[in-house]
């Protein structure tokens, strides 16, 4: 099946030479479009996807080093299950951008939907706008940078890695975190269950600022101070007593 699809692919590719291939998404079904992207990737060219029209499941499952850009908004699960990808999205994204990213980088120029970087294990996602609810849910590594604000349940059930939010975070931040760190430059709406705040140490601040500078953040837009949200680790040991039993013990 894949072979037959791959045979159709070259027709969909056109070449505005300077930037590598461009693919017009409107002319293709999602399946053919993804096959076209993979075929272009195997040739080692930069690929520009025109008119993505916020469609779902674009550029998923690419496990090669490659360079992509989307000239518009993308839908759900864009760049999910990728390893080594370098992608730029000019518009917004739907839910689950960069789901399970292993390595590589994804840059989104506007807002990301809910669950950006869900379960990501490595690499880096940079959101220039705001992120929706549950950013970095169940993250297991890598770095998620949000230049704007992040929504409800940021870092929900996070297990490793770090989230850097330059703006504020919404309610229930860091709910049920196991490990990992959420750095927040702005306001914290409220803390989630078993999350606590600490102030970042000086060496952490220096490292963080150097990292953000390398991402082309200007000094004057960096927050003055970062606070960090980490796990209080009270949920590590499950308390099997009922409230009444506990009361009896205390008495």
């Amino acid at each position, binding site marked *: 099946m894949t072979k037959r699809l791959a045979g159709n692919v070259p027709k969909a590719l056109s070449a505005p030479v300077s930037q590598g291939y461009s693919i017009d998404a409107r002319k293709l079904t999602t399946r053919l479009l993804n096959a076209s992207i993979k075929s272009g990737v195997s040739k080692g060219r930069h690929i520009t996807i025109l008119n993505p029209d916020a469609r779902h499941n674009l550029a998923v499952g690419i496990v090669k080093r490659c360079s992509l850009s989307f000239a518009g908004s993308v839908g*759900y699960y864009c760049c999910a299950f990728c390893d080594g990808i370098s992608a730029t999205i000019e518009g917004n994204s739907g839910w689950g951008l960069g789901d399970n990213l292993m390595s590589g980088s994804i840059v989104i120029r506007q*807002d990301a939907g*809910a669950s950006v970087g869900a379960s990501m294990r490595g690499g880096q996602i940079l959101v220039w706008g705001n992120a929706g609810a549950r950013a970095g849910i169940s993250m297991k590594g890598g770095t998620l940078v949000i230049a704007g604000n992040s929504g409800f349940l940021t870092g929900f059930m996070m297990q490793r890695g770090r989230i850097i939010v330059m703006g504020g975070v919404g309610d229930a931040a860091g709910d049920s975190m196991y490990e990992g760190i959420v750095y927040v430059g702005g306001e914290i709406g409220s803390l989630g269950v078993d999350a606590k705040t600490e102030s970042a140490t000086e060496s952490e601040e220096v490292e963080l600022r150097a990292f953000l500078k390398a991402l082309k953040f200007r000094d004057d837009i960096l927050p003055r101070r970062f606070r960090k949200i980490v796990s209080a680790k009270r949920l590590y040991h499950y308390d099997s007593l009922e409230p009444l039993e506990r009361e009896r013990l205390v008495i």
Partner: protein
Amino acid sequence: MERLHSAHLVGIGTMTAKAYFHHRPWEEVMCGIAAILYKTGESTRSQAVGLQLREMLYSMRHRGVDSTGVNIAGQHFGTDYVVRVVVSEDQGASHVIEGVRNAVAALGGSIVFINDFGRFRRIGLNYSGDLGKLSDSILSVKGAEIHSIGRSSEVIKDVGDAYELDKKHHFSKVNGTHGLGHVRLATESQVDITHSHPFWAYPFPDITVVHNGQLTNYHKLKREFQQRGFRFQTHNDSEVIAVYIADKLSRRGKLGDVLEESLDDLDGTFTYVVSTDSGIGMAKDRWSAKPFVILETDEIVGVASEEVALRRIFPDDVRRVEPQEHEVLTWNVSLAPRIKVRLN
């Protein structure tokens, strides 16, 4: 479809809340809602609301293929009310319509026109009495079900996707000032026309609701309303939202306040949109569990479960907004001059 359906039910029964959120794919693909509203009330131009809803709903057909429905508001009917009725085939359509005619006449009303769309009838009538009585007497005719009663809006819903709906009902040619629509993946109640959205709020004219989610205190709310004499036509949890909103609106007035109250009174996951004679409003639950995006310019606002629907009608440079948890928004058409409707 079946696989998704049963997997979802397993998800609720055996998983913890956290694991449920983890299984996002099922969480997200159930039902899609969309609405559009023109804020240019003074403009006499009738807006292609039907056509735009068709495009939006068709682009979200992957969220639900069981049924599709729209409510197009801001129309001019030329009669006091338009009643949308579906007639049962086993009773014999002409027999049922005769019954409806008699029921209306008995209350002193008169039927001006009846448009025929297969099993569906679009009835224009003049009537000045209590709407509750009118609805009850039409519903008492065996084989007749009401989809909507409106002074300036009507509900059009059927099984199949948006283009199939348009093929049967030609709603893409209906113009108005605002409207809403729904594509359904049935999870809580049966797949048939009456159980599909939008839901009309018995017995209040022009109020309809589309809903994406599940209400867990539906039975309790429904019982309370039934004890107060409200009538429910289906076993769908979304119908109770329509009745809830209409009941509160009739007593309190402001749509925004009523939606705000509903966030605490309704339990479960939901994002829903309400249409009234003068505008639309949306409410999103405290978990932010259901997707919703908004695109707004000075003249027009479009809302939908997914951006893919909005990009069908908005250019790329309009910034989209994603409302967060526990949020309510309303928009008004600033009461446009009534607009002429064309129907095939």
